[in-house]
């Protein structure tokens, strides 16, 4: 990505009103030199450039905002920065309202979103337009000093920002955040939690197996008992039948019991069938359904299916009422048919009304019954059949008791066995019923013997385990990816620092050839070999060298904007820095004073052809005479400043001399 500073505008601020366009024939030059005498507002301009790009003025306190006001002029200050991002325009304006003490922004991005009344940069630029990043390419001497300060860790920050190590950090952070987001709904996210659920599932599987065995055993016992009871029953029957008198009575009782059993089965089926009609459960239900039917809308026909019926009817010779169809009748039908047509859902209402009538109407035949009265009758019939069956059982039992009473000990033993086995069979059957029950939804699987309940819980746990297993796996995966990215970031940082160390020392040996200085190592900050601190010139030289080396290997092109680029350094160093700068960044913008020209500007000129030379000075009584020497058509005059775009003027500009002459 290539970001270029195309220019800026200021109005109503403590720096002069100005509109600076750095472009020459539509192109931004490699080097732009902005010559502004001390007190013209270089630092203010750089602060406002930073604030427009970073959006930081929104956090400014009212006092700070008001400090940008020029005297008591105007109520609003405006600063606009014009950029080219991969040749596309992006403008950000900052408005400082001195009366309210508030800042607001306006962003213009023709390619993405147009004009918005806030600070907004394309997402791709977001990470670069932050204060900690902007200070790298809006560079000042203090920053160079911090590079050498142990407590600041600026060197690490520069390497991270310009060599894109932040990308690995962002990817790592996304990976960890992704798992957090994906697993937020699941409170069990650890191996320990998963183990607990697995243990519970395994315990239930063991319980399922145990209950299955119990069921198998109970059913097997019932089968055995059934056989034994059958055999005993046959023996008892034979014994009863061995006595002529009792055989006849047993035959009658058995016949009655068979008949009663058939009636019980039939009655049970009929009653169940009758109970399936809801209105038959209670007489009130039938009455309420009828009331519902009567309160529904009058019958109408669904329009989309019935309109055709009326259209065809009026073509008939005879009406459905049997009278001949004449023009009057046709017209009446055409008009009245609309009263009977309705939306399509009227078909559903009609069906409901029809069904209520069909199911709740009383049978025409008096002997027939329906609904609730039929349910009552069937229940009574079933009760009667059950009573008869019980009675027949008792009659057989009475015969048996009579024989036992008459001294048949063997029969007594058999009967005792029958009682005991029936007791066991009943117990086993209760267990079978409990195990095979459909299972209440709130049953506790840990204590329940119902297989359905246990199996349902196992199924739920299996599903949960699969889900948690996925979450745990995802965590392990994302944690591994994040740690790989972190390790790679650390490894890359060390490699880059080692390469930068060699590069910086090579450049330093050229820039400071008469004042040798060697970087010993680049840690959090830059450590010099054999000395603790450095002079202002050395510090700036190290700062340039380091930043230029990092910028040179970065994949993105940023403008390097420097306040007093050659201020504290001697002429020799200026020359060498001036020769190196153009090759190390895509755009260099230097805010200079006239005393910095010597050595620095001619060195720049020796390396590049496209240089913009701009001189800006305030209009004051002291500078009034300077207007006479301005190059024709090469200057712009604003309310309080003059901007000259001319190389010769740039070189001959000497405000001190002019002011002295004015005096």
């Amino acid at each position, binding site marked *: 990505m290539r970001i270029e500073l195309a220019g800026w505008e200021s109005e109503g601020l403590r720096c002069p009103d100005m509109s600076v366009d750095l472009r020459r024939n539509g192109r931004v030059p490699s080097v732009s030199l902005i010559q502004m005498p001390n007190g013209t507002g270089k630092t203010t301009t750089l602060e406002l450039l930073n604030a427009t790009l970073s959006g930081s003025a929104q956090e400014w306190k009212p006092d700070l905002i008001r400090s940008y006001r020029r005297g008591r002029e105007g109520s609003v200050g405006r600063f606009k920065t014009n950029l080219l991002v991969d040749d596309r325009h992006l403008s950000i304006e900052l408005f400082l309202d001195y009366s309210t003490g508030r800042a607001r922004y306006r962003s213009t991005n023709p390619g993405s979103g147009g004009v918005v009344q806030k600070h907004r940069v394309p*997402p791709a630029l977001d990470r670069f337009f932050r204060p900690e990043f902007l200070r790298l390419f809006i560079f000042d001497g203090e920053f160079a000093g911090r590079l050498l300060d142990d407590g600041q860790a600026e060197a690490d920050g520069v390497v991270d920002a310009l060599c894109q190590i932040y990308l690995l950090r*962002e990817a790592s952070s996304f990976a960890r955040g*992704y798992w957090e987001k994906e697993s937020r709904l699941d409170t069990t996210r650890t191996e320990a939690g998963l183990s607990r659920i697995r243990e519970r599932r395994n315990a239930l599987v063991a319980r399922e197996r145990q209950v299955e065995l119990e069921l198998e055993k109970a059913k097997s016992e019932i089968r055995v008992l059934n056989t034994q009871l059958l055999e005993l029953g046959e023996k008892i029957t034979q014994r009863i039948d061995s006595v002529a008198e009792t055989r006849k009575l047993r035959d009658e009782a058995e016949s009655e019991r068979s008949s009663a059993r058939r009636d019980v089965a039939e009655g049970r089926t009929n009653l169940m069938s009758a109970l399936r009609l809801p209105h038959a459960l209670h007489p009130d239900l039938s009455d309420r359904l009828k009331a519902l039917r009567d309160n529904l809308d009058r019958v109408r026909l669904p329009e989309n299916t019935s309109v055709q019926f009326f259209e065809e009817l009026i073509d008939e010779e005879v009406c459905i009422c049997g009278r001949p169809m004449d023009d009057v009748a046709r017209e009446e039908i055409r008009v009245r048919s609309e009263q009977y047509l309705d939306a399509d859902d009227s078909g559903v209402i009609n069906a409901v009304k029809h069904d209520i009538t069909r199911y709740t109407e009383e049978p025409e035949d008096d002997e027939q019954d329906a609904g609730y009265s039929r349910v009552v009758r069937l229940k009574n019939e079933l009760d009667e059949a059950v009573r008869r069956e019980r009675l027949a059982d008792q009659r057989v039992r009475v015969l048996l008791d009579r024989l036992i009473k008459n001294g048949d000990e063997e029969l007594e033993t058999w009967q005792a066995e029958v009682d005991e086995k029936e007791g066991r069979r009943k117990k086993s059957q209760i267990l079978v019923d409990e195990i095979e029950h459909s299972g209440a939804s709130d049953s506790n699987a840990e204590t329940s013997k119902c297989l359905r309940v246990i199996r349902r819980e196992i199924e739920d746990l299996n599903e949960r385990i699969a889900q948690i297993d996925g979450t745990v796996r995802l965590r392990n*995966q994302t944690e591994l990816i994040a740690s*790989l*990215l972190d390790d*790679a970031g650390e490894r890359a940082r060390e490699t880059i620092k080692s390469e930068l160390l060699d590069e910086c020392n090579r450049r330093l040996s050229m820039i400071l050839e008469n004042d040798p200085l060697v970087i010993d190592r680049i840690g959090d900050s830059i450590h010099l070999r054999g000395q603790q601190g450095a002079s202002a010139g050395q510090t700036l030289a190290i700062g340039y060298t380091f930043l230029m080396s990092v910028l040179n290997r970065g994949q993105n092109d940023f403008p390097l904007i420097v306040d007093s680029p050659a201020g504290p350094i001697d002429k020799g160093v200026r020359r060498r820095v001036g020769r190196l700068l153009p090759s190390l960044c895509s755009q260099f913008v230097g805010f200079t004073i006239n005393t910095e020209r010597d050595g620095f500007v001619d060195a720049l000129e020796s390396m590049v052809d496209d240089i913009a030379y701009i001189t800006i000075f305030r209009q004051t009584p002291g500078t009034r005479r300077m207007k006479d020497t301005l190059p024709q058509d090469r200057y712009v005059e604003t309310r309080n400043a003059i901007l000259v775009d001319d190389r010769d003027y740039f070189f001959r500009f000497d405000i001190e001399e002019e002011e002295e002459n004015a005096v």
Partner: protein
Amino acid sequence: MTIDKALEDALEDTIRNSGQPETVARRIIAWVRQMSQGSLVKEDDARFLKAICDELRLEGDSED
């Protein structure tokens, strides 16, 4: 879009040393390259991440 060669080398070395397949390195590098263009939304990041997860080998995974 390229990224600093030192980043690519560091990713390749770290991932190789961790015993992960080469495809993991390739996919992570592809993701970081796309990130460097600054054009990814969260859904894109998630897609890259899932693609990397698919290639990762965790302890206990079978070799095939």
